């Protein structure tokens, strides 16, 4: 490997270790109390090197948030040839919950909420990434399912909020208030029950014995 490649790989390794240290320290101390010097020390780089990679503490925090969402915020990629809507919903919801719990998005959201009045710009941008983008991605999935004839035509923007609203009520809202809350053992059952409500409303199979208008 040439010198340039070597330099690039060292630089990437440093960036990764800054991100990792940043994540740990933000999760431990929150945004305001976290110190850039601590993060640099924990990543084993100088603060000058840290600032070469991330122009500010805000910038580093945003990168941590984007990293948590990496490859999990895009649900369209989860669509296969599966035609059972309930199974599709379970797959998408599982991806959502993995990001939320395994990647500690509940903790990151709490940090953002704590920071909302002090640091509105940072919080708005991160919330766009963690909340809005995922809603739009879910909306796109619903639109595809409508196109494929697996759901009745309906307003997918409202639909996305109905579906994700219920999932958040069941798993995310309680976790925001309780750091020890984990995904319950009967999560799949609860997901299916919640999604059954959605399918009852917008699925193609008549469920009430009443034909839609």
């Amino acid at each position, binding site marked *: 490997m040439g010198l340039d490649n070597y330099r690039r790989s060292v630089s990437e390794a440093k960036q990764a270790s800054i991100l990792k240290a940043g994540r740990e320290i933000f999760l431990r101390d*929150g945004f305001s109390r976290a110190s850039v010097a601590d993060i640099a020390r924990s990543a084993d780089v100088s603060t000058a090197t840290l600032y070469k990679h991330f122009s500010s503490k805000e910038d580093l925090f945003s990168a941590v948030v984007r990293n948590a969402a990496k490859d999990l915020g895009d649900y369209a990629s989860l669509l296969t040839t599966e035609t059972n809507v309930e199974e599709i919903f379970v797959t998408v919801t599982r991806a959502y919950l993995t990001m939320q719990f395994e990647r500690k998005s509940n903790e990151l959201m*709490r940090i*953002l*909420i*704590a920071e*909302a*009045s002090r640091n*509105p710009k940072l*919080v*708005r941008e*991160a*919330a766009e990434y963690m*909340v809005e983008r995922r*809603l739009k991605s879910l909306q796109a999935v619903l639109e595809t399912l409508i196109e494929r004839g697996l759901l009745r035509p309906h307003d997918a923007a*409202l639909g996305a*909020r*109905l579906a*994700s*609203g*219920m*999932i*958040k*009520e*069941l798993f995310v*809202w*309680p976790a*925001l*208030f*309780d*750091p*020890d809350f984990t995904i319950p053992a009967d999560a799949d059952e609860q997901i299916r*029950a*919640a999604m*059954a*409500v959605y399918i*009852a*409303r917008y699925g193609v199979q008549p469920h*009430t*014995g*009443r*034909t*839609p*208008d």
Partner: protein
Amino acid sequence: MGLEGYRRSVSETKRASILNAGRLHFLSKGYNGAAIADIAREADVSTATLYKHFTSKEELFAAVVNGAYPDDEYLATAQQTDLEEFMVGLLQHYLRAHFEGQVNTLLRIVIAEVPSAPQLAQDMFERFITLRYRQLEQLADHLVAQGKLKPHDTHYGVRLIGGVLKEYFIWPALFDAGMTLPEDAGKVVRRAVGDYLELYGVQQRPVSRRKKIGSG
């Protein structure tokens, strides 16, 4: 008024001014940042008097949240009016408390301090959020029993409507301290209620009206 009445009224005035001062300090400084001594000073009472009314900081905070939270009297009007209008009114009543009554700000404070005051957050969750859902489930069960809603699993039914309104209004407000209730909130509420009643309402639209056979 007799001596007893006088004492009671002084005591009530003090309690109200402690609550008011507590609200101000919690809203501006957060839960951990607010000091009981400062609150007592602001309310012009001794800390001993404060503790006579509220046994702990958490009790005082809970009382502040309780004062801001929408009262449940509205639930009692369920029988008096058209179901759709009742639901729209109830949900708007909740939204007003969240925005004008600053419940959103109090929620942000509780959530922000989960790492340092986990017990407070869990108590608040139980006392306010879980309790409200329980009341709504009971109400929905009651409406089912009266034949005003179709039989359904009300646990998920109330979370359908609660979840969608939180998506539109409460989640964004948690991340945006300056957010006010959007002007078209009423329209969104009406659409969400329409969706809910489409699923669980018993009144059918004229086009699809038909005799029910052995339902429920």
